[in-house]
């Protein structure tokens, strides 16, 4: 791998603007994470249009550090308010809140911060090392292989849905359907555009994203704004943990970071899965299990290092293959698309400098997190006291500005509001918008690569079997569908019985 682009990425990050963007992004992320009801995904979707006018490196640095910051920020609310600020901080509540009740809120936050920092840094370096390995095989990826990747990516839609698989598939189908709006790549004919010139280049995925993730959250904040305010515990002790304590937690943190990276790698699983997984493993390895749930520092360190380690892990398939594993990484991918960079294996070849800028930004965002976290964690308690109504208004205003900024046109604002109302209805119906976003992103990739493959193969479907990479990927896709059906249990039944007899 060419080391020069790695260094170009590094120097891109090291400018005054970018370091400011990293610190600002992290701070914003911590605040957003600390506010229950605001997710990192929403904040990323809102920030994305604001980065249009920025330099590519600055914009990416800011988005990446917001993601990192929010992963830590979630633990602040979890520890002080007993409400996870983000879903991935749910496991942190178990031991974090008891610690704050025992007057150890500072210690809990400090451990969370250092665990987040270590987990995040490990995953950042994992990303840095893994990306070139995957990058070296990307020339092998043509339309046929891309089609297989897109198919595999789409099969994860079912698993992305929290709860009902049917709801997930429904949401994903709508995403695929919406993605067909616009010019057909192979014929140049506009489809489902109703002769509206604004729809010719398709529905911008950012517009849908802002509407789907931000408007419903703002509306539900308004709905609940009459609920009694939560009282945050006070931070009375010091934030920086003692070296001895940190050293004792080290094996736990390292193990949890490893779990985070690996869970992040698997598309469709994210911070929430990783943090519970790490929490359970920490408990299993602990000598004294009785302290878990009653304020064991290990119960804070494990989920927090894991959910920050997910960030780097989840970016590995996003960057190397163009498959976003979660809605948050989907937005980072969207940020690349906004800069005129198409997702897919080309990322590392054609846009190596930009891609490495993103990777380095993740690494340095963790450093920024440590600095900003030490300075502003106490201040972020104030954020949780802002009335929900104010936040909701600010979000809606930002949504409108953001949607307008995409193409400098009001058409997108209307479209965004339409998606917002649809997203609100979806959330009332218990349907997650995440599969829809994946459908929107992967739909065109799948369709275009299918058409290209058919053109290259002269109309023969057997072209998809001509590439070993495609065959393996399609095989995995088939398996991932089958394991969700009764058929799989039926196939495995004889083996299970045998192993029971043995």
């Amino acid at each position, binding site marked *: 791998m060419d080391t020069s682009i790695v260094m170009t990425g590094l120097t891109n990050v090291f400018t005054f603007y970018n370091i400011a963007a990293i610190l600002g992004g992290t701070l914003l992320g911590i605040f957003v994470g600390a506010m229950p009801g605001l997710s990192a995904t929403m904040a990323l979707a809102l920030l994305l249009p604001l980065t249009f006018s920025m*330099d590519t490196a600055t914009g990416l640095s800011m988005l990446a550090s917001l993601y990192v910051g929010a992963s830590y920020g979630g633990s602040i609310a979890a520890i002080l308010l007993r409400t996870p600020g983000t879903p991935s901080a749910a496991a942190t509540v178990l031991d974090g809140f008891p610690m704050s009740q025992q007057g150890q809120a500072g210690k809990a936050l400090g451990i969370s911060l250092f665990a987040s920092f270590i987990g995040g840094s490990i995953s950042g370096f994992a990303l840095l090392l893994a990306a070139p390995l995957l990058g070296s095989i990307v020339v092998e990826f043509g339309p046929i292989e891309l089609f297989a990747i897109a198919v595999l990516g789409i099969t994860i839609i079912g698993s992305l849905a929290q709860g009902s698989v049917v709801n997930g598939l429904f949401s994903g189908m709508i995403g695929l359907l919406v993605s067909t709006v616009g010019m057909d790549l192979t014929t*140049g004919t506009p489809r489902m555009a109703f002769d*509206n*010139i604004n729809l010719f280049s398709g529905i911008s995925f950012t517009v849908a994203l802002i509407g789907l993730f931000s408007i419903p959250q703002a509306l539900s904040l308004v709905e609940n704004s009459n609920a009694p305010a939560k009282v945050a515990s006070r931070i009375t002790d010091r934030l920086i943990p003692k070296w001895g304590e940190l050293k004792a937690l080290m094996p736990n943190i390292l193990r949890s970071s490893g779990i985070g990276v690996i869970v992040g790698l698997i598309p469709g699983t994210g911070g929430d899965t990783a943090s519970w997984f790490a929490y359970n493993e920490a408990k299993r390895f602990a000598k004294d299990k009785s302290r878990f749930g009653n304020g064991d520092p290990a119960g804070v360190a494990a989920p927090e290092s894991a959910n920050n380690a997910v960030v780097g892990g989840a970016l590995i398939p996003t960057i190397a293959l163009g498959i976003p594993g979660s809605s948050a990484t989907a937005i980072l991918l969207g940020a690349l698309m*906004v800069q005129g960079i*198409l997702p897919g294996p080309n990322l590392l070849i*054609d846009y190596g400098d930009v891609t490495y800028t993103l990777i380095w930004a993740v690494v340095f965002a963790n450093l920024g997190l440590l600095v900003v976290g030490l300075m502003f964690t106490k201040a972020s308690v104030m954020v949780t006291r802002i009335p929900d109504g104010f936040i909701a208004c600010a979000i809606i205003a930002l949504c409108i500005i953001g949607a307008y900024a995409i193409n*400098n046109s009001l058409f997108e604002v209307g479209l965004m509001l339409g998606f917002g109302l649809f997203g609100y209805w979806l959330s009332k119906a218990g349907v997650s918008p995440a599969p829809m976003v994946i459908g929107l992103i992967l739909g065109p990739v799948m369709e275009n690569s299918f058409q290209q493959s058919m053109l290259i193969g*002269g109309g023969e479907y057997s072209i998809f079997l001509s590439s070993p990479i495609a065959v393996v990927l399609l095989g995995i896709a088939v398996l991932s569908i089958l394991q969700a059906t009764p058929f799989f249990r039926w196939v495995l039944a004889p083996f299970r019985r045998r192993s029971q007899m043995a």
Partner: protein
Amino acid sequence: MKTNKKMFATILTAAIASAFSYAAQAEYVAGDDVTVLQGFKAGGGSDVLAQLAQPYLTKKLGVNFVNEYIPGATGAIAWTRLARQSKKDGTIISITNTPMLMTNYIMNDAITYNIKDLTPIANVVTDPGIAVVAKDSPYNTIEDLFAAAKQKPGRVTVGNSGVGGDDYFTTLLVERASGLSFQKVPFQGDGPSATAAMGNKIDVSFNNVGTVYSQIKSGNLKALAVFSEQRVEDLPDVPTLKEKGIDVVAGSSRGYSAPAGIPEEARKQLIAAFESLKTDQAFLADAKKRALNIDIVTGDDYAKMFQDMETEFQGIWDDVSAKQ
């Protein structure tokens, strides 16, 4: 730092504008501010042209250029706005990209503007077309490629930057001139088309010199032929299609146009400003630094270029539609 440079350029432009608005020999008749509609995102190819040319034009015309980005429908939204909804006083102009300007409405009835609604001012840059193959491709010359296409008609795969783009229509032109037929594979832009050629996923990519030049120099791609009038200075060993007896000259061009019916005096001043760029050494050196191939064609000649392209592409597209 792009932002920095842009900011610097804006400040510089403003400074120069204020300094020259008094000193310039010919004050632009239409006003002090000229809005430039761009049909693509900031930072794209059109913007590169704007950042290059406008500081020099500011000096010559004593006006301030304000860029307005209206991306969507391959530029058609901006061009519809230019042709149909803009003041015809010379204060609003647009960057016009050919052949997209024509192919947009040739291919889609829903796009209603026409080159008749425009006042062509000047073409500024042309990126010639080029045929590239992977470094280990069995095709070493353009003759090899054509021989293969003759042997298996419709089976040699040719990548292009998308239906309606310049490379797509170039392929149609080559087919018509040579009597051969290729399998045309559209990609989303020049970059992916070149990458597919590099990985031997397609036999050849019809691309643009500006996009693939560095990959040719680094040896990842082999250039078979350029589609320019003369050989390209930086690629002296690559023959033109014309040398090989195929009369095709094609590429992707960018220039400036105003709405139809602007005052004659404003048109003349704009054209004169672009004419003077031809001999502006600082401008030419700046363009070379950005690897842009300057091809200044102004006024009636630019209008003829529009007209010729429209006739040519309308003809090809009618042929294609008739076959379907």
